């Protein structure tokens, strides 16, 4: 019932950060990992060869989008999304539910599933846990996510508990409906809002189901960052130490650093590739808005020391000329931003393995925010909770 192996590699002696080697049906993934998002079976203009050359080991596809185009019938015909997009490394898919709730009108959750108005003709449709599994089985992703009862992280009252129990019931239905447990891994999603007791109960129940991995769901929806990190930290404390933990929708550099320190292994976010389209390049010293005229005669690379194509072969000035006008400009910044996210994770893994992670964190914050007064207080609190005092 598991199509992965998880080998712990190193543990930080101060924080809860850990490195591990996750082996999935389409190859190894070094944890902690950032997964770039290729929503519709392609990573924003990058060829699979370019994605592979950037050492990306796993990317994300969205079930909702692939279900719509090219559709399940075609995915079955071609034999899954790996073949379809000529990507031989790993793929993770979401359940489709979250995108329906956020993208579609009239989305409503009942015990049966997520009810929504068809984006095609407006007729009423229903996505059930069984159907989500069937779609993800057709896609053939290496990691598939259960359908969960998605509520806003700002929701309070009995609805939070209802969503938590329903997500557990739906997990059971997903497990029962999953056709390919031998070569696809189904991850459970921990719900329970901002309530530690509910989170505790949810972890208890879901751990009993012994899924190959766990995601921390229901966060990154506008809640206070101080509440966010406390829930993440609680979940990593409670979840088993021999399985991967995935925090959904997290991708800003400082969030990644904090969550790694709290013991999370996997992340995804559309931000790095989306922001590239607007000419924004991510660096260890913050974001460069390459549209700005101040780069017109700046002949430095986007980021010194970055080994991506954009940084080794092009200047800021030339990318400034292209950005937001030609697709090539967008491709170059996307290449860099993906390389940046993967480099950030790689540096963290190396620091954890050398047991120098606390020093690395200090250095990262100093470079990224420049002065201590600008460090986000929530990050200071979160890191203090795992023994790193940024303001010391």
């Amino acid at each position: 019932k598991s199509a992965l192996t998880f080998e712990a590699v190193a543990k930080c002696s101060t924080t809860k950060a850990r490195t591990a080697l996750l082996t999935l049906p389409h190859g190894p993934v070094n944890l902690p990992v950032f997964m770039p998002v290729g929503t519709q079976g392609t990573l924003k203009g990058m060829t699979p060869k370019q994605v592979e050359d950037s050492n990306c080991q796993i990317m994300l596809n969205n079930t909702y989008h692939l279900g719509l185009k090219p559709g399940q019938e075609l995915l079955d015909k071609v034999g899954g999304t790996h073949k379809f997009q000529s990507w031989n490394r790993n793929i993770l898919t979401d359940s489709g539910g979250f995108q329906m709730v956020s993208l579609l009108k009239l989305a409503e959750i009942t015990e049966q599933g997520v009810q929504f108005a068809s984006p095609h003709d407006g007729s009423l449709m229903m996505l059930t846990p069984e159907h989500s599994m069937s779609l993800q089985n057709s896609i053939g992703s290496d990691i598939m996510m259960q359908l969960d009862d998605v509520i806003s992280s700002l929701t309070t009252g009995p609805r939070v508990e209802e969503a938590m129990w329903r997500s557990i019931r739906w997990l059971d239905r997903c497990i029962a409906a999953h056709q390919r447990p031998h070569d696809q891994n189904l991850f459970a999603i921990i719900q329970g809002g901002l309530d530690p007791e509910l989170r505790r109960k949810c972890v208890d129940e879901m751990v009993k189901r012994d899924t190959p991995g766990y995601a921390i769901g229901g966060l990154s929806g506008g809640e206070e960052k101080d509440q966010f990190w406390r829930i993440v930290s609680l979940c990593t404390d409670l979840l088993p130490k021999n399985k991967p933990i995935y925090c959904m929708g997290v991708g800003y550099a400082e969030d990644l650093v904090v969550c790694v320190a709290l013991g999370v292994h996997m992340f995804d976010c559309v931000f790095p590739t989306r922001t590239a389209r607007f000419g924004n390049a991510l660096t260890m010293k913050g974001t460069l808005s390459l549209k700005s005229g101040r780069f017109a005669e700046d002949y430095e690379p986007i980021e010194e020391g970055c080994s991506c194509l954009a940084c080794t072969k092009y200047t800021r000035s030339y990318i400034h000329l292209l950005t937001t006008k030609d697709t090539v400009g967008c491709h170059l910044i996307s290449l860099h931003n993906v390389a940046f996210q993967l480099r950030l994770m790689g540096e963290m893994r190396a620091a954890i393995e050398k047991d120098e992670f606390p020093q690395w964190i200090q250095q990262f914050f100093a470079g990224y925010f420049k002065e201590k007064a600008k460090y986000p207080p929530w990050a200071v609190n979160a890191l203090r909770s795992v023994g790193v005092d940024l303001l010391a």
Partner: protein
Amino acid sequence: MRIDEFYKPGEMTSPFFTLHSEAGSLLRRGTINFAKREGRVSSLPTPNFLAHTVRGSVPHLTSDNLELVPVDSLQISAEHFYEQKEPAGLSYPHGLHSYLNANKYLLFLDTRDPSKHAPSSANTEKYLSVNTHGGVRKITPELWCRMISQYKPDFYAVIADVLSDTEPGNKRVRKSVDRTIRWMDECLERTKDLDIPVFATLVGSQFEQERIRSAQEAAQRKVSGFVVSGLGFGNQALDLIKISLKELPEDKPRITYGFSSPESVLEAVSSGIDLFDSAYVSKMTDKGRALTFEFGNEEDETADKHGSKAPKSINLWDPSFADDFTPLKKGCKCYSCITPHSRGYIHHLLNAHEMLGLVLLMSHNIYQYTNFFESIRQSIDGKTFEESKTRFMENYSHEVESDGAQGHEDEVDANSLGVPMKKKRTLLL
């Protein structure tokens, strides 16, 4: 090859252009020879094309993707670099090759973008007026020469008072010829120490006498080649170009614009043109089409043997490709076809408005275009060009490849997202 032209006693370098065909033959095979530079090809066999670029990059292709295509030379349009107060990269000390990460390519620099024929005739005695993304810019001979000496292209055309009105008056055309000659003399004088081969641009619009005058004057100057544009002249273009060509010396290469479709390339090659632009490739790519035609191949499978004419390209927007999991063209060795990325996947990418669709189409199309020119050269060498050209004209359809993105309706398989709750119950949204 005529040995005496290739090697002159007492001179260590070969001439800029070597003609391999017999003297007097309109159909030409040649080689353009450039000074040897580290990491860059130093000769360009002709007939050939200069890959069309936008702001110095082949549309949609980052340099690593372009490297997968056997392209040797790029056409750079100076107007793309002059959108802000100063031309981009003008203060960059290492030249245009390095600025564009195009060290392995031969760069040809001209003023205007040959893929578009935008009216902009507000030129004056002092400057050329160019309509850019950033507004109207004035290019004086002085600025032009500064760009050449900073950018250091491998060869370039001097600025010219090219008119883009369809039927300019006789007076305006005469002025354009005079002005073009004057600017040419000024630019030649200013750049004479640079040792970069320079091409003269021929003008004269629709007037035979003015075309002849422009060509004769240019032919007397110390230039290495000629640019003669057919843009804006419609069906008359080839006839007008032939008027200019008659006045030119045989031993210098000729570039033309506006003849990039396969049929017009073949006609212009027959008329003695050596270098072309590749606007056709960019245009087909933007329409979502993949080139599938072949030239000079006896076993051409794309051409229909049963009488009806084969299309030269396929429209990847066509839903009939949705479940076609074969590559764009059987036997093609481009990145897209050998990976292989299937027609079905590329159809999906277009349908999903994903940029990778255009990346894969462009890399295939430009690859096919290099094959086309390679076949043209082989057929000239093998003396089968006219025969192959006749067969090409017989086998393929020559209607405009018009269908593409237009009229496209998104294909969605909404049913695969879930189960319909109640049949036929439609909500009014």
